[in-house]
């Protein structure tokens, strides 16, 4: 058992996220740590290497705000919502500056976190044979299997300076429980030197310990715990609130126009003191529209020895 790691988002970002760091902000379409990313923008961090399997709107916003010089990723759009135009401007027109990118497939990127978490020198996978990706990214290399089945491609470990994840709940010591799509959060956390967890709710240790299978990131891997209700908006938290698909559609025209994107950052991030103020700006009516009806899991019994 460790003591309380509960802090504020401002303090957690101030302490753990410094200019020039490699920062993983994971969450595969779900539980994207938007509130933490927005706080990084508010604190005007610079020259970050951002790691995200799917950059999503969050990376587009971090880029617009001038926080990012390098991107490590495996998909460069925002799913059904279309293009991320700040990324495209940087890559296609070097406007306002080129963006250094390091590109993998989803499984390749996941294997990088796995190798990082396990402190392996590399991890093999069966992808890329015949693909141009290893030519585009010379960090995807090949090794001869020592067991005689030919060469396979390998990816190097990814060890972020800090990994930030959002989850449904954690206790004060950092035992973090998440459900639904769990993405690369667990390996990205174990791969990192420091881990910030933002949660919808900080719960009592008994709540966590009543369902230990739900803990994906134990307290020993966590450095800071921050309660940030709605912290994944405009992405979603399974069972809490749904994705704000209207915002995802709204971002396309905003990001298409760099001036509009800069104005959005000024109004919604620099213009709000913290995530609670951002949510207040969003309005109660919009938030109510994102609420989901309950669909409880039922419960299992872990049993205990009889007295």
């Amino acid at each position, binding site marked *: 058992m460790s003591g309380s790691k509960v802090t504020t988002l401002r303090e957690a970002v101030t302490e753990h996220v410094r200019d020039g760091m490699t920062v993983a902000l994971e969450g*595969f379409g*779900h539980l994207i740590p938007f509130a933490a990313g927005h706080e990084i923008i508010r604190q005007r961090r610079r020259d970050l290497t951002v790691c995200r399997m799917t950059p999503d709107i969050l990376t587009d916003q971090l880029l617009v705000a001038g926080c990012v010089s390098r991107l490590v990723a*495996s*998909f460069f759009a925002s*799913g059904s919502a279309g293009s991320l135009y700040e990324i495209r401007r940087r890559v*296609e027109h070097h406007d306002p500056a080129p963006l250094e990118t390091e590109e993998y497939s989803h499984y390749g990127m996941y294997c990088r976190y796995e190798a990082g978490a396990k402190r392996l020198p590399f991890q093999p996978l*069966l992808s890329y044979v*015949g693909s141009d*990706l290893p030519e*585009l990214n010379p960090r995807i290399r090949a090794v001869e299997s020592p067991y005689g089945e030919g060469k396979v491609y390998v990816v190097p470990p990814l060890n972020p300076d800090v990994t930030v994840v959002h989850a449904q709940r954690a206790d004060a010591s950092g035992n973090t429980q998440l459900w639904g799509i769990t993405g690369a959060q667990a390996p990205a956390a174990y791969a990192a030197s420091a881990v910030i967890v933002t949660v919808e709710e900080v719960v009592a240790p008994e709540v966590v310990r009543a369902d230990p299978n739900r803990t994906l990131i134990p307290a020993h891997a966590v450095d800071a715990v921050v309660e940030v209700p709605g912290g994944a908006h405009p992405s979603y938290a399974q069972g809490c609130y749904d994705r704000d698909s209207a915002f995802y559609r709204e971002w396309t025209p905003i990001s298409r126009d760099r001036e509009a994107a800069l104005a959005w950052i000024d109004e919604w991030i620099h213009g709000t003191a913290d995530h609670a103020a951002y949510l207040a700006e969003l309005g109660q009516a919009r938030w109510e529209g994102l609420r989901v009806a309950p669909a409880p899991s039922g419960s299992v019994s872990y049993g205990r020895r009889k007295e």
Partner: protein
Amino acid sequence: MTADSPSPDGAASTAEPSTAEPSTGDATATDGATDRAAPLSDVPPHSAEFLATVAARELAGRRRVFAGVGLPTLAVDLARRTVDPGVELVYESGVVGAHPEAMAEGIADSVLVSGAEAMLSMDALFGYVLQGGHVDVGFLGAAQVDRIGNINTSVIGDWQRPEVRLPGSGGASDIIASAREIVVVLRRHDPHALPAEVDFCTSPSPARARRREGFHQPAGAGVTTVITPLGILRRPDRYGELELAAVHPGVTVAEATGDVGWDLRVRADVAETPRPRAEDVRLLREEIDTVRLYLR
């Protein structure tokens, strides 16, 4: 693990008889199936409704389908409601056996999770399910597919200073290596979408993989089927090139072969694609994509 199984020949040929609809309503109406008398729709072949219906029919008889974003989402939903309720949907987000109550807006939508048969880690999904050989069909969108079935979803033009930066691999280059076969839906049928050779090979065909000597070869047969707004292209075998297997109603063979970046071969048995039933289109519009996210 052997590189030559499953037989792509078998995969390609089973696709034809599994097509749920006869080519026209006046064919052998002997088995009394109500579908044969079902009214047909006249939606144009380039419409999302038409392409989704054709794609849905390709899934009949397949067990486990790895679905991507966009038209594949519509097609797998329609397939479950029409040609094959038993199709098991797998998504790269870790969802296995999805039973969505509403149309998924993307592969990480919460509706895919609620009520699913399993919610796996991405390591289990890509490592055990996909790389372990449990996916029958990978269903992908693409910007370009070339003569031998290489897929480009990365860049158009120069790699370092591209004309268009596309989304990149996502799971596609992992899926093509290990799914038994790949079905691609293209929204365009012209030399840009169907070039002789892709500008960038994100997801390689087995023929291209074979040129990397000394490598453990991928198990998958690669792209077996490409559905376009003009017709259906198929590859006859693992290392072969795409051939015109069907044209959509109102499209001539010459139109379909003339607008491709290479000299497209025509199969001797080239067929006309059966029209969607009115019911297919109704399901797509009124029950599946009610918000018109993919049906525009």
